[in-house]
């Protein structure tokens, strides 16, 4: 098995699953019925994408299933970005988290879509359509909240500020990322400036200020997570841990 490629696919799957999990926590609690439905839709997309990546990973590792990756790994084995495990807090934080990630996610998928790995490019092509919508949703809300009321402006600015340090991890390559850059041209260093331009433009249009920080938060890709992931997994894995080896 190609360990780097496998790790990379798991990284993608974990990002999708953990963000999908967080967004799914909104289900039934959204600020308006229409947004409740939209958030659930987005959560569904993410979990659906996680399944495609895990299924692909499972083809490389005989005897594994998609559920083994989701339900039977520990915190330190998960490789998702730290940003994505951060709590929903309020609608503003939820939007800020998605906004930063969606724009990055779209850039990655654009490269993967036409990369030389056929399996990955097929998944990326489908995910690309979904994530284009995610980008529209989150950036529209950044604008609405930024240029809405004084309160919403303050709240979304605070959320953008607080989550910004986690965005450095997008572009800090893991071993798997380096492998993908060398083999398939998925070069994170090239995406960094593109991401900054896109994000800054939207932030400015939303009458907000682009945060800066000299103190990045890193480690998710290497399994060094925040305390929050353990609680996510406790909930996510409850059934499989309590009733091992059962069919559901």
């Amino acid at each position, binding site marked *: 098995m190609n360990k780097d490629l496998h790790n990379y696919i798991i990284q993608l799957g974990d990002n999708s699953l953990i963000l999908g999990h967080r967004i799914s926590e909104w289900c039934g609690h959204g600020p308006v019925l229409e947004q409740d*439905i939209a958030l659930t839709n987005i959560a569904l997309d993410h979990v659906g994408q996680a399944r495609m990546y895990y299924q692909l990973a499972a083809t490389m590792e005989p005897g594994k299933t998609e559920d083994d990756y989701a339900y039977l790994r520990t915190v330190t084995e998960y490789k998702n970005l730290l940003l994505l495990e951060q709590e929903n807090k309020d609608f503003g934080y939820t939007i800020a988290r998605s906004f930063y990630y969606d724009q990055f996610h779209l850039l990655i998928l654009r490269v993967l879509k036409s990369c030389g790995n056929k399996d990955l490019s097929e998944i990326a092509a489908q995910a690309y359509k979904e994530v284009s919508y995610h980008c529209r949703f989150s950036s529209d809300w950044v604008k609405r909240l930024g240029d809405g009321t004084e309160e919403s402006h303050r709240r979304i600015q605070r959320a953008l500020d607080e989550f910004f340090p986690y965005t450095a991890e997008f572009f800090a390559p893991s071993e798997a990322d380096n492998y993908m850059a060398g083999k398939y041209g998925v070069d994170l260093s090239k995406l960094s400036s593109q991401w900054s331009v896109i994000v800054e433009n939207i932030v400015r249009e939303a009458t907000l200020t682009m945060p800066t920080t000299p103190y990045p938060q890193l480690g998710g890709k290497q399994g060094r997570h925040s305390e929050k992931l353990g609680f996510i997994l406790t909930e996510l894995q409850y059934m499989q841990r309590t009733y091992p080896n*059962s*069919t559901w």
Partner: protein
Amino acid sequence: MDNLKEKAFQDKIDQDTRIEPKDWMPENYRKALIRQISQHAHSEIVGMLPEGNWVTRAPNLRRKVALLAKVQDEAGHGLYLYAAAETLGVSRDDLIDQLHTGKAKYSSIFNYPTISWADMGTIGWLVDGAAIMNQVPLCRCSYGPYARAMVRVCKEESFHQRQGYEILLTLSRGTEAQKQMLQDSVNRWWWPSLMMFGPSDSDSPHSAQSMAWKIKRFSNDELRQRFVDACVDQARILGVTLPDPDLKWNEERGHYDFGEIDWDEFWQVVKGHGPCNKDRIETRVKAYEDGAWVREAATAYAEKQAKRKEKVA
């Protein structure tokens, strides 16, 4: 004058002509519909909570996706139904306010807790199943927008029911612990599901008028009987016992006889004192209040955008 209008209205109903929003209708018909449709909409929305509860804990990814999609369908049902109610001249905000202040009711079934994964199956099988029994006749309801909303809703509800039953089938073929989980869940949900059809015909205050207006087509007891008849075989296939010692086939009637519902429990929950009434409303109110700043922002932004357009034009 109104008598003439009223007669023309009843003639239409008797000829099965649909009543549409712009048509004249008696005030009480309008009120009865608003009450029923809004209750129905609220039930969809509150009904998202007991199942939404298990989204983060679903036992595998396939089930997680299916459950999320189901709860999302229920939100969609709420949306169509609020829209149908709005055609009668009430606003969604007012209706939601009635829910939050306890003036409006929703289906009591959602005041019971979901404490095991099996409950996701049982709710699909019994609760969506009972909802289908109640709602299929509503597809022919005299009020057009409600009838049309119900056609869409019923299609999805039968999908939910099959999905729920399939969850239970899987449990029935599983380990001892899974079988126990299944039986326990059916024990808890059977009677509350029978209560979903409402009070006995003799105690149902709105029924006679609703039948004359063809808002309702069958009585509570008729629908309940159909439901019981349908469930017995399905329970047998699952290998579960329905928790009613009086349940047995009555050759003469051609139906199953069943025991008496605990009406004290029924009224207790209806009046707001079931296991989860307070939690459910508190959760809805909290979501609404927490979302106030978001709704305000969206309104303010839309107004600014409209003004900017004006300036450009």
